[in-house]
């Protein structure tokens, strides 16, 4: 699964730490999601999407083979 959290962060100009604080996780969790090392739960995906005022589909998408 790929995501464009890094792009969304760049648009609203916030750091990983600021996003992490806003949704109540560690910065490393955001980093692991951005780099594709960790696939978040539905709950976390919804929180991230809500933070950027977008739908989950706009931020997360399936890759071929998923």
């Amino acid at each position, binding site marked *: 699964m790929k995501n464009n959290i890094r792009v969304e962060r760049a648009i609203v100009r916030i*750091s*990983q730490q600021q996003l992490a604080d806003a949704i*109540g*996780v*560690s*910065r*490393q*969790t955001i*980093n*692991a*999601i951005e780099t594709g*090392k*960790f696939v*978040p*739960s539905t*709950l*976390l995906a919804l929180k991230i999407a809500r933070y950027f005022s977008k739908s989950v589909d706009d931020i997360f998408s399936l890759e071929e083979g998923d």
Partner: protein
Amino acid sequence: MKNLWLLPKWCRTAGWFIFAVCAFLGLYLIFIEQYLPIDFQPWMALKANIAIIGTLAGLFMVAFSKESVEDEFINSLRMDAMIKSFILNSIIIVLLSLIMYGFYYVYVLSIAQYFVLLAYIILFRYNMHKYFRNNEE
């Protein structure tokens, strides 16, 4: 987010202290006092029980105390370390069973009861180090 049931953060430091003291006591009983669990002596049995229970309790406190931030990613690191430690423990028991016979097998069982927790702690700390060292954007 529902997190795992874990001990407070301060338990990690206390756990290391209890582990160090009790593991030292256990090693002292085995190697210096040459204690064997087959002959029952109340005073020695009490010391051995303190060493066994203290070592396990210390390791348990270290293994299952909260991190500064507990979230689902850290839970996944815990799960990864847990599975690997069980696999490693099974391999160790199988290998030691093949080379240790008779009374010495008691030592295999003694090692096994601590090894799974010790391996979990090492693997989990390694996971944490791998992801939690400075990897800013």
